[in-house]
């Protein structure tokens, strides 16, 4: 029965091309707890153990007991994620839950508060946990799965892309990078600036998988591209781990122990050609360009108001495009924009900087599909960041999955 219910939710959230019209939820939802498991390379750890470790940590952070949770959000599209039955069994509960398979990570880590508000407003839930875990590192090592699995099975890819060698994701995004280079004059060292800035942040973050491995621009440029123009440092990690965050009505946030983070704006948009990236009309671009304007309008803020940015960064080129598509610089100019120390947490907005992926992102923190980015931004807005941005008031998460983008604007409560 739980399976059927989340199946319907999942079908209702298929990405439609173009920007979604979302109800205005400015100031309605607060994030009152965040938690993570340990993140690592291939570990053999059980996915369920990591997911519940993240939930346990988020509940401790929020000062909650499991029986106080009455809503669950997770990805209905990814294998092995949360179900109400497993949550009940794990904590020995039997009360009613509202659930949604339109949560988890990717773009949904941005849009989950929107769906959560619908449940809260209608009285279906009051305390909602959004969670996502992955054991893709272990799967990949065992040659059992990983990010390319769904792509290999898709009919057009299987018959018109894979046979030519257009697989997996690093090959797609090498083409995107090349096109960006050709159109806008973007250069490898500008992708390198994103890789180096991300690694610098991971080196200062105790939870980052790459905390002990440094990366200089000299190191980056000395590396031979393996899917030219991409180097291995342009590609995100593949990790094992899990993250969770807890949402409730903003007017209840004062009842929780940690400083609340208020959701100010949410946006969502689907790519025009879905998973067929090669066919996308705006090839050197992301759906962020369609998702961000609605989120900023809802929040009554603009990119210039943002103190700290986290974007879904499967590849340096995707992060670079996200920066311009979200509106932080004109289209095509992100290459020059990201050079030097612009993205470093300690330069700050007041000095013309744009503190970016202050945990290291998926490139250097962990491949937790962006839900780790939301956890990091909540900590930044509370003033708890390992690489704390001075006086961080407004944060934006740019979620992405290739087929869609979600934008989440948050403010310190």
């Amino acid at each position, binding site marked *: 029965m739980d399976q059927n219910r989340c199946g319907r939710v999942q079908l209702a959230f298929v990405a439609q091309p173009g920007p979604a019209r979302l109800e205005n939820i400015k100031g309605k939802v607060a994030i009152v707890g965040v938690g993570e498991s340990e993140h690592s390379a291939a570990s053999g750890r059980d996915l369920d153990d990591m997911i519940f470790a993240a939930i346990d940590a988020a509940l401790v952070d929020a000062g909650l007991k499991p029986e106080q949770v009455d809503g669950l959000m997770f990805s209905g599209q990814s294998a092995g994620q949360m179900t109400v039955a497993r949550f009940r069994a794990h904590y020995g509960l039997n009360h009613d839950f509202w659930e949604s398979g339109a949560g988890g990570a990717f773009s949904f880590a941005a849009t989950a508060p929107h769906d959560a508000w619908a449940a809260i407003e209608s009285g279906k839930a009051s305390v909602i946990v959004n969670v996502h875990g992955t054991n893709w590192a272990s799967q990949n090592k065992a040659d059992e799965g990983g990010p390319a699995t769904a792509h290999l099975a898709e009919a057009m890819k299987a018959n018109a892309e894979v046979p*030519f*060698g257009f697989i997996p994701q*690093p090959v797609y995004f*090498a083409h995107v990078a090349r096109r960006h280079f050709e159109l806008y004059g973007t250069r490898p060292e500008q992708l390198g600036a994103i890789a180096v800035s991300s690694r610098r942040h991971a080196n200062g973050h105790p939870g980052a998988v790459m905390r002990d491995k440094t990366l200089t621009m000299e190191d980056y440029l000395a590396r031979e591209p393996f*899917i030219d123009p991409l180097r291995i440092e342009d590609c995100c990690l593949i990790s094992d781990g899990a993250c969770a965050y807890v949402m409730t009505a903003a007017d209840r946030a004062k009842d929780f122990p940690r400083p609340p983070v208020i959701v100010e704006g949410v946006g969502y948009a689907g790519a025009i050609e879905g998973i067929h990236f090669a066919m996308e009309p705006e090839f050197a671009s992301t759906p962020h360009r369609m998702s961000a304007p609605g989120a900023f309008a809802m929040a009554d803020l603009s990119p210039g108001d943002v103190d700290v940015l986290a974007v879904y960064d499967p590849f340096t080129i995707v992060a670079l495009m996200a920066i311009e598509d979200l509106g932080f610089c004109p289209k095509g100019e992100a290459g020059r924009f990201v050079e030097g120390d612009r993205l470093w947490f300690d330069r700050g907005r007041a000095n013309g900087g744009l503190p970016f992926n202050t945990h290291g992102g998926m490139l250097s923190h962990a491949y937790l599909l962006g839900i780790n980015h939301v956890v990091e931004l909540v900590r930044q807005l509370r003033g708890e960041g390992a690489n704390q941005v001075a006086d961080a008031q407004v944060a934006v998460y740019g979620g992405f999955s290739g087929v869609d983008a979600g934008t989440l604007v948050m403010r310190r409560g």
Partner: protein
Amino acid sequence: MAEAKPFPLPDVDGPLAPLWQAASQGEFRLPRCQPCGTFDWYPTGECRACHGSDIEWVALSGRGTLFSWAVVKRALHKPLAPIAPYVSAIVVIDEDRKTRFVTRLVDCDPESLHAGMPVEVFFADLGYPAVETGVAAPLFTCRATIERDET
């Protein structure tokens, strides 16, 4: 040592059978809406422009321009390892600048490539030149190379 994984072949009788069957006869065909001329690629069966369903696979010149490319020095998808290094490419067909075709560039110097350069279909075995798969495929090559060879 693990057994080598088979090269990824299309289902020549599957959803894109007309593409692969045309290739086996030395033709490059894509589906086009007959009334309005818009290409239906990848095929949906419904024209993206006029929403009609009168779509036919038409023979094309095989000429196009290079849209983007990547030099795959190390194949992450292991069954493709035998053809690495290879040049993965997206080309725009001359008949419609909005229609792109994913393919592989062969017999071209990767250092000489740039967006917009003329390319031309080159029918060969899908695994050319490294592997014999038995499936004929519309690969592409640099048009200037062919013209130079002919003179």
